[in-house]
């Protein structure tokens, strides 16, 4: 028989210790039972038992408590806990929950006692069977995990007979037993459900009970020896509500769990978790009511927008570097072009200058003014030189000629420049100069600066709260005649509005006052004393435009009109005027200062 010391059986350990102590007293036993101690004290030799009894049952002395654990109340030997023993200890049951110190029972909550099976093996599965009915099958062994068909002894067995269905006899018995049990339950259920017949207890006959009190005597019981009690059932109101409330009995503790006969679940790998990912829009947990989520909401919810795009800094640096290089290159190109342009300009200027001097010389030679000795510089700066001279003989004519010459020169330069331009540029320049130059128009009085400030604004922009950005009104919007043409102060409203007095004047008066006033008025006032022109009267209030009468022809005008019956004079005048106006634009530039320079 094998024995493993367990904490459940401290007695065995105690015996071992006493055995060790008694080694010196007794002769050495022949067969030392090293590990074959029985768990029961009966199996220990009587001598040893006697010895163990003599030994006081207490804790080992201080310093020899290594590996020793106190289990029973006796182990503490009327003392407290052992601090050097690192297990939970309950000396005299202090602090122990539930049961008292040493009373170990098999009831629930108590520590389980060690059980041994028929072969003497410790039944470790007792803990799994604890709390289960004896009839219940609890699989606790390793062999319960191994499929029967894989077990070695199963192969040899006749599997068909092993797996045979129960015979009819068993089936019948089982059915009978079950039927009886179920019927019992059913009957009780039906009986409980059926309303009880109204008891006829109310009209039960009264019971008479003869009652003899214990204490007899004149003072007791009104002196009588016996009493007769009449017992009547108290009438019950059949409609009386229930006096007692049924309370729901709380559910009892569940049966202990069955041993788990499978390996623990593996942690799902990342791939498996990925496989089981259910989008929240269709998940039964996240969208329990099964609403249809619009696609844009799904996209917004899946967090794709939350991921920020990470761009490497090097991109920005690269772009900067490219920009810088580009700028640098452009700058270089521009500088070079400028340089070349400047060179070309210089060369051209030189050539022009040369040509000009040649032309000047030729002109002067032609004019006979030139002195062969005079240099180019003198010619060019002749005017200033002469002014320096302070020669008063130099007259206005010379200055004018000089100015005209310069003007012509400028003209020539311009033409030369134009001739050097490419055709397209020339066309552009022509087009520009065609409409740009309004100096003549100004001179003729055709072009006038915009007079009023009001006309500077687009009328359509008024009364638009949104401004121009809202656009103009639509084509169909009827805003053309929404205002009077001559509205406001400039209009006729102020002028032609008849005043009240004149109104009544015109229409013969509405009221008596006005009529009497009108009658009393002296209508021939002016004929007696002339006080100047009627229209020039400052005090007079004008109630309308000044009206002129056709004047009578005076003597001179009458002569004139007679002399020019056909309006010839007038016609000539007009023709002259027209000729002058048509001449004016034909002249090349009225004033040279107003010619725009290009």
């Amino acid at each position: 028989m094998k024995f493993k010391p367990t904490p459940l059986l401290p007695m065995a350990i105690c015996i071992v210790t006493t055995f060790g102590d008694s080694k010196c007293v007794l002769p050495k036993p022949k067969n030392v039972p090293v590990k074959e101690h029985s768990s029961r004290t009966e199996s220990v030799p009587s001598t040893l038992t006697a010895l163990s009894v003599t030994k006081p049952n207490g804790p080992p002395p201080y310093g020899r408590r290594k590996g020793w654990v106190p289990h029973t109340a006796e182990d503490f030997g009327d003392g407290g806990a052992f601090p050097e023993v690192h297990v939970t200890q309950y000396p005299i049951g202090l602090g122990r929950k539930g049961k008292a110190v040493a009373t170990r029972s098999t009831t629930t909550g108590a520590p389980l006692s060690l059980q041994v099976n028929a072969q003497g093996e410790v039944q470790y599965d007792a803990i799994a069977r604890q709390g289960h009915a004896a009839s219940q099958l609890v699989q606790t062994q390793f062999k319960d995990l191994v499929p029967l068909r894989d077990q070695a002894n199963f192969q040899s067995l006749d599997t068909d007979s092993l797996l045979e269905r129960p015979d009819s006899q068993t089936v019948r018995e089982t059915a009978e037993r079950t039927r009886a049990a179920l019927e019992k339950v059913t009957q009780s259920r039906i009986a409980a459900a059926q309303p009880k017949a109204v008891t006829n207890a109310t009209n039960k006959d009264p019971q008479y009970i003869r009652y003899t009190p214990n204490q007899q005597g004149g003072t007791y019981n009104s002196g009588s020896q016996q009493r007769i009690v009449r017992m009547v059932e108290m009438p019950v109101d059949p409609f009386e509500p229930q006096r007692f409330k049924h309370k729901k009995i709380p559910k009892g503790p569940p049966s202990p769990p069955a041993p788990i006969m499978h390996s623990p679940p593996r942690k799902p790998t990342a791939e498996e978790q990925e496989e089981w990912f259910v989008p929240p829009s269709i998940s039964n947990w996240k969208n329990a009511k099964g609403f249809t989520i619009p696609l844009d909401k799904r996209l917004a919810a899946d967090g794709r927008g939350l991921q920020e795009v990470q761009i490497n800094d090097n991109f920005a640096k690269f772009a900067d570097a490219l920009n810088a290089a580009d700028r640098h290159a452009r700058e270089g190109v521009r500088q070079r072009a400028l340089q070349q342009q400047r060179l070309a300009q210089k060369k051209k200027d030189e050539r022009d200058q040369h040509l000009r001097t040649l032309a000047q010389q030729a002109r002067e030679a032609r004019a006979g003014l030139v002195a062969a000795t005079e240099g180019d510089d003198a010619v060019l700066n002749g005017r200033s030189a002469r002014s320096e001279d302070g020669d008063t003989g130099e007259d206005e004519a010379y200055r004018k000629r000089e100015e005209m010459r310069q003007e012509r020169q400028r003209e020539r330069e311009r033409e030369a420049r134009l001739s050097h331009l490419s055709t397209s540029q020339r066309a552009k320049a022509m087009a520009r100069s065609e409409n740009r130059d309004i100096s003549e128009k100004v001179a003729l009085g055709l072009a006038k600066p915009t007079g009023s400030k009001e006309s500077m604004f687009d009328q359509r922009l008024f009364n638009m709260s949104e401004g121009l950005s809202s656009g103009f009104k639509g084509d169909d919007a009827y805003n053309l005649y929404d205002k009077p043409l001559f509205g406001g102060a400039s209009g006729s409203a102020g002028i032609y509005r008849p005043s009240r007095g004149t109104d009544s004047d015109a229409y013969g008066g509405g009221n008596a006052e006005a009529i009497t006033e009108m009658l009393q008025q002296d209508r021939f006032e002016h004929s007696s004393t002339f006080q100047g022109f009627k229209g020039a009267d400052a005090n007079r209030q004008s109630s309308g435009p000044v009206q002129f009468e056709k004047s009578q022809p005076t003597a001179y005008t009458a002569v004139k009109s007679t002399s020019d019956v056909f309006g010839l004079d007038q016609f000539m005048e007009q023709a002259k005027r027209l000729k002058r106006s048509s001449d004016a634009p034909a002249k090349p530039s009225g004033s040279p200062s107003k010619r725009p320079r290009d």
Partner: protein
Amino acid sequence: MMRPEWHAPWKLMRVISGHLGWVRCISVEPGNKWFATGAGDRTIKIWDLASGNLKLTLTGHISPVRGVAVSPRHPYLFSCGEDKMVKCWDLEYNKVIRHYHGHLSGIYSLALHPVLDVLVTAGRDATARVWDMRTKQCVHVLSGHTGTIADVKVQEADPQVITGSMDSTIRLWDLAAGKTMATLTHHKKSVRALALHPTQFAFASGSADGIKQWKCPEGQLLQTCTGHRTIINTLSVNADGVLVSGGDNGSLSFWDWKTGHNFQSIASQVQPGSLESEAGIFTSSFDQTGLRLITGEADKTIKIWKEDDEAVSPYVATV
């Protein structure tokens, strides 16, 4: 190692399209003339087994019908559904004659006792209820599971009631006492399917982690068949020792019961107009002869499978 028995391969024989919802349960009449199906369209339809013609449509449930059973000893059809109702239909009048009221949530499975006038229903309220057929009384409430009970089977000898639950346990119940006889915790995933062997005193249970066979009175593990890597919705066994498992992805696996050898795997084709994801087998049942397999599928069809007649056993040829 045992040599697996040869079985002829199975092939699709007929597709019956008539239901408007998932076909969730099948029950073949004891006379093998017709069979009843319950579906997600809340109807129970009765079909002629030989021709596949619709004979009758029974309406009355207000939620998907999850269990039907034809009684071999009464002219009754029992049905249960997610509307928490158990109905007893009289097939002579085609009317509901009884209701069994008491379930707190949808009922997912139903089984009739072969000897006693008792039916057992089980469902989402984690209880199996034993009903007295005639008095409509709930005789026992078999509680103990911590999850939805997906399947319940009843047999004539102890353990008379077997339940497989989503808490991945199987419980064997003592019907007379209404208590658990044994709890089998070998499965790691929810047990959705149970099948009683017609001749042997054993049963099979299907879960996503495999199919296990159990020896009956004490619930010893007989065998583990792995290889059908999907959620197993249904299991059926015939007397020839062919175990069929129908998966949630429309795969059908055929196993030799004795050795656990997977001799055939078929992927069920969805009917035209269905999505690919609508391949799924919810229920299966052999007919009374065991020569036809009827499956109810997620593409709203009922499919009938049969063994290939022309297939010849290679062992016979060599012998």
